[in-house]
């Protein structure tokens, strides 16, 4: 027993107190972590209130989680009418169903599934969320909360993919017009903040539409966000394209593949494999950027905090709301980064599409 304590002390000395500077830093860190930790535990758990009907139950120095529990429906579904909420899970489940073919082995040309989704998803969303024959109409202004964040993220990511890939290929094209236009597109949209694009789509675009034609704000925003994301995606894919050895192009040329088939069968599979982790990274950034729609007056998971906290029963509950939204965003983004890591590992386990390493010189 004595020996154990001694070796533990030795270990501490060696690891944390080996130099005076290190010792000071260790003490400082321990103090800081404990102080913040205690304060947070006190606030979030010990002094917290979990049940109640209004802000009167709030305790000094403690969180009022009752607010979150009472308003959970709004955080999840926004101001969607209560009786109609069942339509949201149905929409999401249907959208997830369309993903099944990706995981069935033996189905080839999975790109076609993606192209099909680009048509099917808007139909699902339009019929079930907005309403159609047999379903009550719900304005897209009432969509909100996590649902809106989900819809903006997945549709934005879906549409940005084909455009991003085309722009990346276009940037490497030999035709000056295509190349110039691609460069202009990518650099322009990467150089301006997303807010200005959202402003354009909400304020300026209506001026460009023919008289009487109106496009729903939601659609304009999704188009704007896809354009923004596709510029970033194009840069990532271009990075992948540049790292494909020249021999791959030459071999494909020698085998008589035309540009389209060559890109589809030989180049892009390798590029996507190389860029998995970067694509994951910009997708996470994109999900974080969907919060910007609150500035043009849409109530996504973050945007809904302030209308909920201005309810007269729950005035001043912004801290709880923001922290709750932050935790949800953290979980989503962290999960995706783990997922990306797993996918990257799995992709690299597959047999090499082209045995680059085994080619004799």
């Amino acid at each position, binding site marked *: 027993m004595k020996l154990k304590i001694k070796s533990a002390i030795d270990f501490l000395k060696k*690891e*944390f107190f080996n130099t005076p500077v*290190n010792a000071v*830093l*260790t003490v400082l*860190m*321990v103090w*800081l*972590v404990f102080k913040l930790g205690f304060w947070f535990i006190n606030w979030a758990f010990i002094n917290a209130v979990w049940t109640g009907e209004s802000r009167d139950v709030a305790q000094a120095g403690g969180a009022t989680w009752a607010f979150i529990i009472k308003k959970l429906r709004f955080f999840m579904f926004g101001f969607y009418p209560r009786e109609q909420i069942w339509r949201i899970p149905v929409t999401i489940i249907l959208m997830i169903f369309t993903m099944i073919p990706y995981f069935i082995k033996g189905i080839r040309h999975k790109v076609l599934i993606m192209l099909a989704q680009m048509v099917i998803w808007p139909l699902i969303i339009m019929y079930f969320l907005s309403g159609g024959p047999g379903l009550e109409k719900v304005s897209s202004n009432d969509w909100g909360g996590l649902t809106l964040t989900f819809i903006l993220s997945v549709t934005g990511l879906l549409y940005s993919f084909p455009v991003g890939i085309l722009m990346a290929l276009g940037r490497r094209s*030999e*035709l*000056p*017009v*295509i190349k110039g*236009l691609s460069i202009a597109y990518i650099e*322009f949209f990467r*150089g*301006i*903040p*997303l*807010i*200005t694009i959202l*402003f*354009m789509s909400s*304020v*300026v675009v*209506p*001026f*460009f*539409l*023919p*008289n009487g034609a109106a496009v729903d704000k939601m659609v304009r925003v999704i188009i704007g966000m896809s354009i923004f994301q596709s510029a970033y995606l194009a840069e990532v894919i271009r990075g992948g394209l540049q790292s494909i050895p020249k021999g791959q192009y030459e071999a494909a040329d020698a085998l008589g593949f035309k540009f389209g088939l060559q890109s589809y069968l030989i180049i892009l599979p390798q590029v996507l494999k190389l860029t998995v982790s970067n694509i994951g990274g910009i997708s*996470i950034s994109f999900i*974080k*950027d969907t*919060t*910007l729609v*609150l*500035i043009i007056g849409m109530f996504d998971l*973050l945007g809904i*905090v302030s209308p909920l906290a201005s309810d007269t029963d729950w005035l001043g509950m*912004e*801290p709880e709301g*923001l*922290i709750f*939204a*932050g935790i949800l*965003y*953290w979980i989503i*983004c*962290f999960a995706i*980064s783990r997922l990306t890591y797993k996918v990257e590992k799995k992709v690299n386990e597959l047999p090499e599409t082209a045995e680059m390493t085994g080619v004799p010189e």
Partner: protein
Amino acid sequence: MNKTQSRNLMIQTGIIALILGLFLFFGFNYIENITKRNIGIGFGFMNDTAGFSISQTLISYTEADTFGRTFVIGLLNTLLASFIGIILTTALGFIVGLMRLSSNKLISITALAYVEALRNIPPLLHVLFWYQVVFLNVLPPFKESFKVGEWLYINVRGITIPSFIPQENAHSYSLLVFICIIAVIYISVMKKKLVLRGVHKRLWPLQLAFVLIPVAAAWLLKPYDMVLPQITKFKFSSGMTMRPELFSVVVALSTYTSTYISEIVRSSILSVPKGQLEAAKSLGFPSWRRLQLIIIPQALRTMIPPVTNQYLNLIKNTSLGMAVAYPDLTSVFAGTTLNQTGRALEVMSLVMITYLSISLVTSMLMNWYNKAIINRKGEMISKEDIPL
């Protein structure tokens, strides 16, 4: 002209025709729409009176000034937030990046927790959090301002400091300051060159002198008249106020961006060949000098391009200040001015072109800095140059 060439020509003409067609279509729609709604066209509105107030202005501004001036005010506020943000985020990013490399597990794990916790949360949430949760709750109310003498007041409306009114000799004074700054930088550069030649001279007293000259001149010549903040019943009648919106934008963006910069710093320090560190150790450099003289100069080369990207992100993200009503370019010009004038297309084009130019200038400066580092002779030997 062979078959491929003519085909390529046709494709390109087709694309140009398509784009021109779209332009014409949108252009006609636009003209039709604005004539119907009675909105003018062109930038003539820039000379009209703005008639709204702005909460924080770096240069003098009244409601009688023009819309053109609101553009300048917004731009200056954007640049101010970006500038402070970049300096803070670089410092924080370096500290956290070095902490992650510390051999002390406690420190490196704390740094890892900081990075993982902050970077998975949207930047807009950071901004709102600092504004609504921290600054509005922590800062004292106006009546109970925290005071430092008569000079500095801190309250929920921001930090108020004395304002400085330039006198006649202010111009020559700023020239003097400029010359002294150049001199200090020049001496540092000279010193490095001398060291390379093996000459070790003590030059810091000279530099100190050049720092002291402007201070002394300010004391003696009084180029600026200091006006202390005066409290009337509800507001300060004089003095310069930095709003809490500025702090929340700057603090939020610099902590958020520092998580990315710390990762860049960490990976580029790790990418310096291990032999460099071992060589420095065996030459007897103390640990801090090792980092300062051997490792960081080499790591900088791989660091600059990705760090530039982060700076650009930070600059673009200052537009998030709009959510807390920080009067930056987007908020003042693309927000209020656009609403007042209705000239959506003109205003938005100007804003986008301005952001593009800021991005372009920043990346040009960073490229120039990067080249300056790489081209320095006699200091760095790349791995390939070392004879085996």
